[in-house]
Each structure stands twice: as C-alpha cells, then as structure tokens.
C-alpha cells in the first residue's frame, strides 16, 4: 500500500478496541475509533475511509447490523469494505476457523470472531482492501 489506508473501527468496548488498534497501528494503518453506532455512522458520513471494522453486538442489541443496513442503502458506503469482528459465535466460523465467512451485508465484507489473531486480522484487512480496490478498478 503506497499511502496509509484510513480505517474506522466501531466497537463499544474500548479495551477490545485498544487491542485491535495496537496491531493495526503497528502495521502502518491510520485507525479512527467510534465507541457507539451513532458516532460511528456520523464519522462514516463525514469523511472517507478505506475500510470499516464493525462490531455487531453494541448497545441494546445487534446495532452493528443496523449500520451495515444503512450502509447498504448508501451507494458510496455500500462500496466500502467491511470487516465484521463479532463475539457472536457463527456456527460456520466455529467449524471452519480462519476460513472466509461473507455475511453479505455490503458488497465486500467478511466476518471474523473475537478475539482475532494478529496475522488473521492483518490478512483479512489487506485482502478486503485489495478486493475493494479491484472492484473499483473494473
């Protein structure tokens, strides 16, 4: 990546965010953080990000899914790649750890389970960024 990719993370657990952000910072990404869905969506609307890291269970329930739905309706945000990082145990993720799980919320997304191994995290982020760039180029 020639220029620093700008990422946004939306997650209501600051301690967890710290653990993810440290790994991404270290790998040279520029990471912004929002600790609730409202701030997160405002940030998404106000400036450009290359990728979103999204938690599912926030606040009163699956508020992360609401954000993904809103993004889907937005032609620009629908193009943004999303890495869903969730504590919800998807059966698929449980049976085939490390394999790609695409929830299909937006055009380019993947799901990983909390906690995320650093190598897996970095691999998913770079793959998603690349896939989204390729889609844009075509």
């Amino acid at each position, binding site marked *: 990546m020639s220029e620093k990719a700008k990422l946004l993370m939306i997650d209501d657990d600051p301690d967890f965010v710290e653990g*993810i952000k440290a790994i991404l910072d270290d790998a040279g990404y520029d990471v912004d953080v929002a600790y609730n869905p409202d701030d997160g969506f405002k940030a998404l609307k106000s400036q450009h990000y290359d990728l979103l890291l999204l938690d599912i269970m926030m606040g009163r329930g699956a508020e992360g899914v609401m954000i993904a739905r809103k993004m889907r309706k937005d032609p620009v945000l629908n193009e943004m790649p999303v890495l869903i990082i969730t504590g919800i145990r998807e059966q698929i993720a449980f049976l085939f750890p490390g394999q790609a799980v695409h929830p299909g919320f937006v055009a380019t997304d993947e799901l990983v389970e909390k906690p995320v191994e650093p190598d897996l995290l970095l691999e998913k982020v770079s793959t998603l960024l690349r896939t989204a760039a390729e889609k844009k180029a075509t």
Partner: protein
Amino acid sequence: MKHVPRILIIDDEEVVLDSCALILDKGEHELTTAGNGVEGLELVESLRPDLVFVDLKMPGISGFEVLEKIRAIDPSIVTVVITGYATVSSAVEAMKKGAYDFLPKPFTPEELRLITRRGLEKRSLVLETMALKREREIMRENFAAIVSHELKSPLGAVQQNLFAMTRDSGTASEKDKERLEKMKTRIDDLMKLIHKWLRGISVDMASIKENFEPVSVTACIEKAIESTTPEAVRKDVGIADAVHEPIRLVLGDEVSLTEALVNILGNAIKYSHVGTQIAVSTEEKDGRIVTSVTDSGVGIAEEDLPMIFDGFYRAESGKAAAGGVGLGLAITRRIIEAHDGSIAVYSELGKGSTFVLSLPVLRSAPSEEPGTEGVKDTAKGGTG
C-alpha cells in the same frame, strides 16, 4: 396444602357417582360428577380438574373419545378409566389413548382411594416436571445470553490485548514472553470451554430442523476430516475414509451434521494412541446411511458406556487421556436425534471404540453422488 385437588367423575351410572362421592373424603378433594361425556368435557374445560375418572361404556360419546378430548384440552390432566368389562384389551386401549390407569368395576372403597391417591401423585409429578422444564428453559436462555456477552466480552478484550502485546514484545524479557504465551493459552482454553458449554445448553434442535435440505453425508465426512486433520497430524494418527458407493442423500442440516462428525472424529483422535489409525466407513444399508468411526485407542469401560451420551460425563479411561468437559457426545446425540437418526457405541477398555451413526436416506429424490472413488485415504498422519 394450599391447593385442594379437583376430581371429576364421568359415569352414566348414578350409583357409581354417588358411591364415589361417599368414598372420597370431601375435605381433601373437590369432587364434581357428570352423567355423560358431553357434560363431562364441558366441566373439564371450566374446572380444569387434576384427576378425571372416565367410564368407558357410556351412551352418547364413548369413554375413549372423552379421553382423547381431555388430552386435547390439557394433556397434563391425569385420567383413569372405569371399566365394567375389565378386559385387558380395553384397558390397554385406554392407556394408549393416554389414560394413566384403570379401575375395574366393581371396585372396593379401598381400591378407589388408592387409585385416587396414585392419580393425584402422578398429577403433582406432571405439574412439577412442567414447572421445572419451564424454569430450565428460562434459565437456559438467560444463562446463554449472560455467558455469551458478559463472560466472553471481557475475555475477548483481554486476549486481544495479549495478542497485541506478544506481537510487540521486543522489550519484554524472555521470562515475560513465556508468561504472555501461557496467559494466551489459558484464556484460549477458557474461551473454548465457554463455547462448548454454551453450545451444549443453548443448541436448539427445533431450529436446526427448519433448515433441513438434502445433504450428502460423504461431503459432511470430508469436511469433518478436513477440520480435524491438524489435530490428527499433531498426534500422528491416520484417518482412512472408505465410502461404499452408491450412497443416497439424507435430509438434514449440513453444518450440524458436520459438527456431529467433528465431535466423533475429534474424540477418536483424542483417545487414540500416537501413531495409530482411525477407520471411517460409510455405506447405505436397509434405507439408512451408516457411518462408523473406529479407533484403537483407550476404549470405554462397560459400566461407563450407558452414560457417555449424557452431558458433563467423561469415562474413567477418558479422564487421563484428555481434557474437556464431556459435552461433545451429548451435543452429537441431540443433533443425530434431530435428524431421526441413531448413534451407537461399541467399545472395549484398552482396545478402542467404534461409534456408529445411522441416518435415514432421503426417499423422494434418489440421487447419484458425484465422484466414483471407492476407497480413498485422507490425512495420512506424519511418519508413523
């Protein structure tokens, strides 16, 4: 006793009703009588009695019909049939329709009192069981929710930070790096335990059934082998997978069937001796897909066999061999039963075990399985 048991007697003979009323102590029970089925059923609706005596032979709607209708109104109501023709067949027929017991005419006061007492005991057991089941369901749901969020979230946050620390541990001493690794391992074990536990209590078999579709058992086996291969390689255990074609599809949920097979295979690996083989064999036999998984590991003692499919149980021979909470087989059994299948185990202590899964084939759509390989080997572990 705060609750006075309500008893209803439905009989067309007034003399029976009267004598019953005399025999059954008024203070202890609230007794109501009805002279025919229709009237009796109305009273069942309005009174919700604990125990109902039903005469089998009545003019109008028959005692059998009354039994069925009571069951439809409230299956927890205990019914006892009164029968003038005390043949075994009519009593059996009534019991099949859900009657708890039968009382042959003529009966002595002592017999009526005894059967009343037993019937009411049965009723309180039924009610107690229902209350416990309800309570268990609520607890299960609450507990699953609490465990999944309140327990997993903080552990996840700790682990994520440990991940970050071990990645950036250039300044840490060797001793500290070792400590960090140990912490990661322990938290990982703890999270796995929580997941397994959570799955054991919250797996909802009814919802699995909603997603049933034609599934290839051989495909599930392949996936299960793929997912357990790393563990097999680590223990230098080989897995030989033999499929005797042709094999038809079954109706099921691929993800849970694979999970069941992963559990069985995972156990086989866990309890195998280093360097041994596990044989997986699948064939269609009498309209069922039968898969057997045979290991030559530690085996299970005869006295432990009946318990291994219950939750939180681990056989003596298994305790020394491996960790775990003993839920895998309980979950597996529930998954297989949700598929109308069965699971059996044959084992000898010290010699190994064979688990046999049997699933009914999908009858409506016979299908040719892709792939013609007869016997193939997968996951040859290590150097042996």
